[in-house]
Each structure stands twice: as C-alpha cells, then as structure tokens.
C-alpha cells in the first residue's frame, strides 16, 4: 500500500513537471528586444521641446508606431522571426519592452523589420492583439493602419507662433523595410537587443522635413505622397541597434 502511495506521489510529480516544460534553459538561447525612443544621445520624452533639422522647435504629446516581422538573420542568411506586429506607444512603457523569445543558437548578423503593417494585414480592422482597432491606429473610413503617429506642436518658422503638428503615416506604399547590422553570437545565452529610434533623425536624414506649412498629413491624399516618400527614405536611418549577452 505504501508503495502504491509513493507511486502516486511520483506520478503527480511527473505530471507537474510535464506541465512546466523547458525549465532547463542551459541549452537554449533567448532574446528580447527593448525599444528606446531617443533624440540624439538622450532619451526622448513626451512634451519636451526639441529642435528638428530645419531648426524648428517641436514636441510630441503622442508618439506611436508599428514594427512588424522583426527577424534575426544569421550568417547563412537564415531568418528567425521574433515578433509579428508590435505597437510601440511611448506613453505605454510595457509596449517598449517586447517579450522574450527562444532563438536557435548561432551567429546573427542583421536585424530585419518593417516600419508599418504588411499589406496582408493592412486592410482589415477585424484583428486582435496589437492590431486591435481600439488602439486608434487605423483609418476607419478607408481601412488601413496608421503606421506611425506623431501629434504635437511646433513653432512656425514664418509666423513664430505655435501650431499643431499631425503626422499620420501609412498606406501600403509607406511600408519601410529596414535592415540593421548586428553582431549577436548565442550558444545557450540570454541576450538583449536594444533598438533605438531617433525621432530627430527621422526628420533629417537624408531628407530634411520642415514642419512649417507641412504640418498636417493623413497619408490618404495624393498631396501626401511626396511626404510619404521622404519619410520612408528616412525611416531606416532613424533606427539603430546594439545587442549584448545577458548575465543573470
């Protein structure tokens, strides 16, 4: 009888442990991406005043954007997708810290992602997760996601007055594929990838975006297309990345 009880106890233990797979992390590698919005070397803050490449003082009370299909690429060109769609909302600190994911051991040489939502997901609001229309990142009269939203104020270079800035960037043509070099070698390690987004670089490199007379864009008119093209060319230069192994 005693033996039967012990057997049951053993079985219970096995049952418990089989519920919690992968507790042994020694032979597995993990990474996570932390996003930092910055202005040059400094952390970006909502409502702080900055100066863009055109010399205009500006701020943002809202800064949100989608990154999609973020992948690590190893030296053989093999890709592992880390995240499908992630909404980065500067006012929501948890949105800047992406979940830890398991990755194969290897030597990774680049980080790829899109700024924006891919065309397969861009034309329906019937979606959950970070694509939930509840987040207000969708045009409801012309179904499509707002890839990047900066709302704030700036000082007009002609009138010297403070004026609203509304930049809602999107549509399929606006999707910006980005590839950044990285040196990440993992063999059973935990690692962190720091992705930096420099808002000032978005407005200056290589195209200088002046806000004066150019402060209200919804992306949906023909007149928005040159502005979309300029920003799309700037987005890859606004991001930079570094990574390090994480010691517990």
């Amino acid at each position, binding site marked *: 009888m005693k033996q039967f009880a012990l057997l049951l106890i053993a079985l219970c233990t096995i049952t418990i442990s*089989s519920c919690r797979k992968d507790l042994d992390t020694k032979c597995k590698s993990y990474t996570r991406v932390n996003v930092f919005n910055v202005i040059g070397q400094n952390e970006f803050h909502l409502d702080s005043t900055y100066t863009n490449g055109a010399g205009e003082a500006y701020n943002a009370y809202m800064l949100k954007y989608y990154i999609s299909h973020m992948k690590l690429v190893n030296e053989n060109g093999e890709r592992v997708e880390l995240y499908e769609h992630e909404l980065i909302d500067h006012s929501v600190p948890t949105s800047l810290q992406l979940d830890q994911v398991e990755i194969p051991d290897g030597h990774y040489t680049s980080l790829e992602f899109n700024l924006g939502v891919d065309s397969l997901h861009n034309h329906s609001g019937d979606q959950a997760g970070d694509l939930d229309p509840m987040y*207000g990142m969708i045009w409801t009269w*012309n179904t499509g996601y707002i890839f990047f939203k900066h709302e704030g104020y700036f000082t007009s270079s002609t009138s010297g007055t403070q004026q609203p800035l509304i930049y809602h960037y999107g549509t399929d043509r606006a999707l910006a594929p980005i590839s950044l070099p990285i040196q990440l070698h993992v063999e059973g390690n935990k690692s962190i990838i720091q992705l930096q987004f420099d808002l000032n670089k978005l407005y200056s490199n290589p195209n200088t975006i002046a806000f004066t007379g150019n402060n209200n864009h919804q992306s949906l008119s023909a007149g928005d297309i040159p502005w979309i093209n300029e920003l799309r060319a700037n987005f890859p230069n606004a991001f930079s990345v570094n990574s390090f192994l994480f010691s517990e």
Partner: protein
Amino acid sequence: MKKLIVALLFIFPLLFVACDKGEDETPAATPYNLVIPEGLPPMNIPSTNPLTVEGVALGKRLFYDPVLSRDNTQSCASCHLQEYGFTDPNQFSTGIDGIQGQRNAMPLINLGWQSKFFWDGGANGMESQVMGPITNPIEMHETMANVVAKLNANAEYPDLFKAAFGSSQVTSQNIMRAIAQFERILISGNSKYDQYMRGETLLSAQELNGKALFEDMEKGDCSHCHTMGSTFSDFEFRNTGLDSISVDEGRYLITLNESDKGKFKTPSLRNVELTGPYMHDGRFQTLLECVEHYNTGFHYSANLDPNLYFAVKGRMTQQEMEDVVAFLKTLTDMEFVNNPEFH
C-alpha cells in the same frame, strides 16, 4: 494511509485538469441557420466569423443600442431604419453633434454579397465597416476604445459576448463581428419580382414592359450595372454623370486613381421604392427623377461610365420611363421591412 491515497486519487485528476490549458467551459455558440431565398446565390461568409444564434442576437442588440455613440444618444438604427430598407429618409443624416454629412445613408439589404462598403468602398469587409459610423466625428463620434470600455462595464454585455464568442472580455474585434453577423441576415428575397420569378405570382403588363426596358440595352440599359436576377448590383464603382465636375470625388478618395474621380458604388435596387432619396448625395426624391437622369439628364465627363457615354439621350419615352419605375416597385419586399427578426 488509506486517507492519503484517497486524497491523492482526488488530487491526481485535478492535476490533469490543471495541465489541460485552462479555458473555462463555455458551450459553443449555436450555428445560425441562414436561409438563402431561392434565386439568390450562396453567401460568402468569412470562416473567421461564422453566423451563430448568439452572435446574431448580440449584433442585433448592439445595432439598436445607442451605447455605441459617444453621448449614448444614437444607435446604428437611428439612421438605418428598417421601414425604409434600413436607410434614412432624410437626404443627409444628422450625427450626435448636430452635424450633417455629404452623403446619403446607404440601405442595409443583402450586404452579405458585397465585399466593399460605403459609397466609395473605403471599408474592406463588413467587419471593418462597423468602425466607420462609430468613429466618424459627424456620426456617432465615439472611439472603439470607449465602446469596448463601456460594454465591458455593462451589466449584461459581457455574458452576451461570452455566449457568442466564448469570452466575456468585450473586444473591438468581437463587436465588429457581432454587428456584421446581424447585418448578414438582413436578406430580402421575397418581393413581387422574386415571387414572379418563382412562378408564384404574375406581373402586370406595365411591370413586364418595365422589366423588358430595364434589360433592353437600347432603352433602359439598367441591368448592365444593376445586375438582373438577384443582387441588382454589380457592386462596382461607376461615374454615372451626375455632374461634369464631381464635388465629391468618391472612389478616388480611396484609390487616388484619376479614373476613379466621381465614381460611387452601384447600390442594389432591392426595396428601392422605400430607400429614397437617391444617389450618393440624395439629390433625387423620386424614382422617376432617377430614370430621367439616365435617360436624358446625365453629364459628360472624362470618367463617365462607357455604358452611358454611348447611350442615346432621350431614348425612352415618358411612358417607358414610368414603366421602368413600375418594374422597380416590384422589388419592394414588405416581408423584409416587417421582419420581426430584424428588430
């Protein structure tokens, strides 16, 4: 010791249950038996949003609930009235802030056969369409986030969402899906025309003549776009020559293609007797005015639909136009406008 064993025997199955990923046990929603009237094609329903009894009932409740508007005063039904084929008898509807738009509310009839919504096709799919009127500042002027919060805080809705979708957490996705389910059941297929086509009734001589003119490419030439037989629309976007220069650029606003300037979706003609005023801007009060427009009134422009470009002005007599109108009135389906399932 015996007690320990008995206790373990109890704990053991519990452990298995705990391992079994813990969705709580909600009975699956009941499939909705959608009856497609004879003569109408099968409906394409997205596999992600099958019709269920609970989903349709929830959608109907949301459709009639002013909670969807910011100040809780207007529901979908405020501008989509069943007695008028789920449209607004006013030229322009008035939103919660007292502001009027520039387009006539669209009737909600046989939407399940359409793939693009609004006059300009700006919404891709019935589910996505739902967000439009809720968030439009000149309509219900609400945010999806607020609607989700209001419904989650409601005493009854979480249970209704659970019955329909298996989760009591109200989400914008399930709001859209529920309303789309209800809109898909708004089927009209028992007009005098349908009964005639099924051999159940006869059309008058005038109605029959109107039907012939409707199809005659040298006369009415209506059926080119208002496809004969079932949906009475090809659901394409066409410039029907309402103006030589379009104030409202219509489909162009969505596609930015020059050739789409002044194009609007071909509306279905089902229940057209009840859905006036007519055209995207509600400029015509009567069906005769509409027929006159296609007979003589249309304007030439770069994007004028080719069918009209080649049509001879004044090709129908007054009597013939009246016969076409008589035929159009055979598309009135009183069973649809009185169907208790819809209100």
